[in-house]
C-alpha cells in the first residue's frame, strides 16, 4: 500500500506545488518542503520492507510494477533526503528569481522520477521514468538561459543517445524473453547465450555510462553542472548522475547476474576489467583537468566526473569489499558534493552570482557556516580520515591492492593526490587569503541555507566516524546480489587482512588535539592582528592587490596545460559540426524546381532497374 502512496505523493506533490505557486509563493514553498519531508518519512518507514506491487496491467498486455528491495531502498532514501535538503535551501536561494513555480515543479518532478526509477520493477516503467528524468533535467539545466542553453542541448543530445541504446536493449529483451519484468528476466537469463549477455551489458553500459559520465562519454557534464542553478547542480551531481551507478548495479548484478558479468571474456579483455580501466581513466584525467579550472562550479563538476570513476572501479572489480566501497562511495559522494555545491551557492547568493576563483577570497570570516561546509566537503572529497570519503576510498584501495591490481590502485591513489591540489585551490581562493574591499559588506547567509549545510557537514563526520551505519544496509544489498557478507560493525570493518576502526582513530586524535590545545592555551597569549598586518619582508603592502590566487599552481600549468585537453569533447564538437555541414549541403537538393525532382525520380528508377538487371534482387 505505502509504495503506491509514495509514488502518488512524489508525482502528485510536484503538480500540486506548481498549482500552489499560482496562489502564493509562500504557500508553494511550504507545500514543497512538507511534501519532500513527507517523502523522507515514508521512505524511512519502509526500511527492510520487501514488496512488489502491480501499478497497471494493461500496457500492451504487460504489467507495470514497482518493487522494493535493499538496493531500491538505499537509493530511495538518499534521493529523498538530499532532495528535502535542497528544497529547503532553494527557499532562500531562489527567492527573488523569476519562474520559481516552474523551478520547484521541475525539481520535485525530477525527484519523483528518480524515485520511480529505483523502485521500478519492470523495464518499461524504468524507461518511462528515465525519460521523465532526462527531459525535466534538460529544462532545469537551461533554466538560466544564455550560456545554459547550449549546455542543456549538449546534455539532451547525449542523453537521447543513451535512451535510444536503452530502448534497443529493452526491445531486444522483450523479443528474446517475451517479458519486461525484471524478476522474470533474471530467470530467463540462465538460458541466454554468452554473446547475447555481452550485447546487453554493452548496450546498457552506454546508457548508464553517459549518465554516470564515464570517460569518453562525459562531455555533457562540466557545462551542465556549471550552468544550472546551484541547488539543482547539487541534485544533479549528488543523485541524478548516480542513477548511472544504479543502472550499472541493475544490469551487472541483478539482471545479468554477478557470475555472468564478472566472467565475460578472458584475462585483460574481459568486460568488467575494461570497465574498471575506463573507471581508472575517468579518475585520473578529469581530476587533473579540474586543477586548471577557474570557475568554482566547473572545478567541482570535473571532480564529479573523477569521483564517479572510483564508484565504477569499485563496482567493476566485483568483490564484496570493492562493491561495498563503490556503493558507499556513491552515497558519500552525494553527501559531500551536494554540500560543496550548496557552499558555492551561498557565495553566489551573497556576492550576486560570483563564482570566479580569481576574484574572491577571505570569505571565511564573513560566511563561517558556508566555510565549514566547504572545508568538510573538500575533506570528504579528498578522503581525509574521519570523513566519510576516507572509508569508501579505503575499501576500494584495499580491494585493488589485495586483489593484485596494483596499476588500478595506482590510478585511484594518484587521483586522490591530484584532488588535494585542486580542492585546496578551491578552498583557498574562495574562503582563505585576504578579503577584497568590495566584499567587506556582503549579504548574510540566510538560515534556510545554513541548515542544510550544517546537517550535511555533520553527516560527513558521522559517516566517517561510524561508517557502520550505512555499511549495514549496503551489506544487505551485497548479500542480495549473491556476494558473501562483510563483517561490519558500527565503527568500521573487521577482517583477517586488515581492520579499519574509525572510532579508534577518532578518539586518539581527539585526545591529542585536546592536549595540544591545552598546551597552546597555556603558552603566552598571542595578539590578534587584522589581515593587512602581515610580513612582507620590508616591502610596502598595497591594499586589495596583495593576494595570491590567480594561477595558483603556475609552474604546473606551464608544464601540463598542453597535455590536459578534453580531446573527446573536441572530437564530438567536430562530429557535430561535420553533421551540420553535411546536412546543410544535403538540404540543397530541394531546389524547388519540379524538373529537378522528376530527374531524381527517373535516376532512382534507373538505379533500381539496373540493380534488378545485374543482381535480380526482386
Amino acid at each position, binding site marked *: 500500500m505505502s509504495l503506491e502512496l509514495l509514488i502518488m505523493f512524489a508525482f502528485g506533490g510536484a503538480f500540486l506545488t506548481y498549482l500552489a505557486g499560482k496562489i502564493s509563493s509562500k504557500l508553494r514553498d511550504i507545500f514543497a518542503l512538507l511534501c519532500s519531508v513527507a517523502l523522507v518519512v515514508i521512505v524511512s518507514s519502509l526500511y527492510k520492507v520487501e514488496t512488489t506491487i502491480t501499478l497497471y496491467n494493461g500496457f500492451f498486455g504487460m504489467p507495470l510494477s514497482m518493487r522494493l528491495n535493499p538496493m531500491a531502498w538505499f537509493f530511495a532514501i538518499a534521493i529523498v533526503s538530499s532532495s528535502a535538503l535542497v528544497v529547503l535551501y532553494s527557499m532562500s536561494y531562489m527567492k527573488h528569481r523569476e519562474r520559481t513555480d516552474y523551478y520547484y515543479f521541475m525539481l520535485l518532478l525530477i525527484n519523483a522520477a528518480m524515485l520511480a526509477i529505483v523502485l521500478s520493477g519492470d523495464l518499461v516503467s524504468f524507461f518511462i521514468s528515465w525519460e521523465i528524468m532526462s527531459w525535466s533535467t534538460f529544462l532545469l539545466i537551461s533554466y538560466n538561459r544564455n550560456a545554459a542553453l547550449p549546455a542543456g542541448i549538449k546534455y539532451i543530445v547525449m542523453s537521447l543517445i543513451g535512451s535510444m541504446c536503452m530502448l534497443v536493449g529493452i526491445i531486444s529483451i522483450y523479443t528474446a524473453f517475451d517479458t519486461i519484468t525484471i524478476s522474470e528476466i533474471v530467470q530467463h537469463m540462465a538460458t541466454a547465450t554468452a554473446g547475447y549477455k555481452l550485447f546487453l551489458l554493452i548496450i546498457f553500459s552506454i546508457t548508464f555510462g553517459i549518465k554516470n559520465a564515464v570517460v569518453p562519454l562525459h562531455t555533457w557534464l562540466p557545462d551542465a553542472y556549471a550552468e544550472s542553478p546551484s541547488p539543482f547542480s547539487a541534485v544533479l551531481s549528488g543523485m541524478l548522475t548516480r542513477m548511472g551507478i544504479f543502472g550499472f548495479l541493475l544490469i551487472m548484478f541483478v539482471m545479468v547476474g554477478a557470475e555472468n558479468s564478472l566472467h565475460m571474456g578472458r584475462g585483460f579483455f574481459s568486460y568488467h576489467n575494461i570497465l574498471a580501466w575506463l573507471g581508472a581513466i575517468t579518475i585520473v584525467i578529469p581530476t587533473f583537468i579540474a586543477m586548471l579550472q577557474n570557475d568554482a562550479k566547473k572545478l567541482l563538476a570535473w571532480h564529479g566526473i573523477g569521483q564517479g570513476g572510483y564508484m565504477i572501479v569499485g563496482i567493476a572489480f566485483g568483490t564484496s569489499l570493492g562493491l561495498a566501497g563503490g556503493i558507499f562511495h556513491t552515497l558519500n559522494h552525494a553527501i559531500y558534493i551536494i554540500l560543496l555545491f550548496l557552499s558555492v551557492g551561498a557565495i553566489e547568493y551573497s556576492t550576486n552570482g560570483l563564482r570566479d576563483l580569481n576574484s574572491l577570497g*577571505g570569505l571565511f570570516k564573513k560566511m563561517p557556516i558556508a566555510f565549514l561546509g566547504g572545508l568538510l566537503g573538500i575533506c570528504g572529497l579528498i578522503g581525509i580520515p574521519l570523513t566519510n570519503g576516507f572509508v569508501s576510498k579505503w575499501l576500494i584501495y584495499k580491494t585493488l591492492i589485495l586483489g593484485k591490481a596494483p596499476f588500478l590502485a*595506482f590510478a585511484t591513489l594518484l587521483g586522490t593526490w591530484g584532488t588535494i591540489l585542486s580542492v585546496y585551490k578551491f578552498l*583557498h581562493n574562495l574562503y*582563505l587569503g585576504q578579503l577584497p574591499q568590495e566584499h567587506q559588506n556582503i549579504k548574510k547567509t540566510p538560515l534556510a541555507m545554513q541548515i542544510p549545510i550544517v546537517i550535511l557537514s555533520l553527516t560527513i563526520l558521522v559517516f566517517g566516524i561510524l561508517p557502520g551505519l550505512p555499511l549495514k544496509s549496503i551489506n544487505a544489498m551485497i548479500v542480495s546480489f549473491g556476494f558473501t557478507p562483510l563483517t561490519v560493525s558500527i565503527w568500521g570493518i573487521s577482517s583477517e587482512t586488515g581492520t*579499519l576502526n574509525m572510532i579508534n582513530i577518532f578518539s586518539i586524535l581527539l585526545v591529542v*588535539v585536546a592536549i595540544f590545545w591545552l598546551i597552546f592555551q597555556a*603558552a*603566552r597569549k598571542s*595578539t590578534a592582528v587584522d589581515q593587512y598586518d602581515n*610580513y612582507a619582508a620590508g616591502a610596502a603592502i598595497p591594499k586589495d592587490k596583495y593576494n595570491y590566487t590567480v594561477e595558483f599552481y603556475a609552474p604546473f600549468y606551464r608544464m601540463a596545460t598542453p597535455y590536459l585537453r578534453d580531446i573527446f569533447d573536441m572530437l564530438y564538437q567536430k562530429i557535430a559540426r561535420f553533421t551540420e555541414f553535411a546536412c546543410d549541403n544535403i538540404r540543397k537538393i530541394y531546389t524547388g524546381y519540379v524538373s529537378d525532382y522528376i530527374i531524381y525520380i527517373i535516376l532512382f528508377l534507373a538505379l533500381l532497374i539496373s540493380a534488378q538487371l545485374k543482381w535480380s534482387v526482386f
Partner: protein
Amino acid sequence: MKILSLFISPLLALIIGLLFLGISRKITAKIHWRCGPPVYQPLIDVIRSFSQKSISHGAFFDFGIILSLSSSVVLIYFLPVGDLYAMTSGGLIAFLYLMLLGPFGIALSSAASGNPNSSIGVSRKFLLALAYEVPLLLVLLTVMTHYNTISLVEIVNIQAGTGMAFSSWALVLPGIAYFLILPAVLGVRPFEIVSAPQEISSGPVAEFGGKHLAFYTLQHALQLFVGLALFVNIFLGGGTLFGLLNPIAGTVWATILGIIIFLVKMFIVLVIELFINAVYPRFRIEQAMRYLWKWPTLIAFVGLVIVAILN
C-alpha cells in the same frame, strides 16, 4: 606495550626529530667549512619560542597548526619503532592519508593569515607533494603487492623473518627510488623550495611566531622522523638486524635494543642523505617536479612492473 608506547613514542619521536634537525644543521655547516650551531639548538629554540610574543590571525589560524601537530603525533602511533607501536587500524593506506593531514593543517593555518608569501609557499608545497607522491605511491604499492598485505606492522614482521627487504632483489629498485625521493619527502636541500627564506620569506611560516613557530618546528621534526622511519621500516627491516636479537627475543632488553638499532639505522640514512645533498643548490619547483617525475618514477614503475609480473 601499546599503552606504554602511547606515551613513549611521541616523546621519543619529538626528541629524536629535533636532535636530527640539529645534527643536520651541524653536518651541513661542517661541509660548508662553517662552525654551525650546537646540536641541541632546535630544542632551545622551541623552548624559547614558547615564551615569546606571537600574533594570531584568528581562531582558524590557531586551529590549523594545532591540527597539524596533533595529526603528526597520531601518525607516530601508526609507525612501528622497533616493537613500539600503538595502532594498526587501516594499515599503510590510513598511514598515507594521515601523512597528508600535517601539511594540510599548516596550509589551512597559513592561508588563513592572508599573507601571499604563505600562499605561494603552500602552492609550492602541494606541487612538490604531488611530484614526490607519484614515485612514493608506486614504491609503497610495490611493497604492499610484494608482501600481499596493507599492514605496516606485518611488512616489518615479514622482514624480521627474512632479513632486510633491500636484500630481496625484487625490492631493490623501489628501495633506490625511495632513497632518491627521500630529500623531497623530508623537505631538505635541494628540495627546500617550500620554505625558501631568501625568495618568499620562509613561505608558510612567514606569519608564525612564538608558540605558532614552536608548534611548526615540532611538526617539522616529526615529519623528518616519519620520513626516515618509514624508509627504515619498509626497506631496512625496522628494529631488527639479521636475527641478531633472536636469542633474547621477548625480553625488555630486546625491545630497547630494537629501538636503538632502529634509531641507528635512521641516523645512517640521514647522514648519507646529508652528504649527498648538502653540496647541491636549491632546485626551482619545475626542476624538482621534472626530476621527481623522471628517474625516481621510472625506477619505481619498473619495480612495480617486475613485482606485478612475479605475482
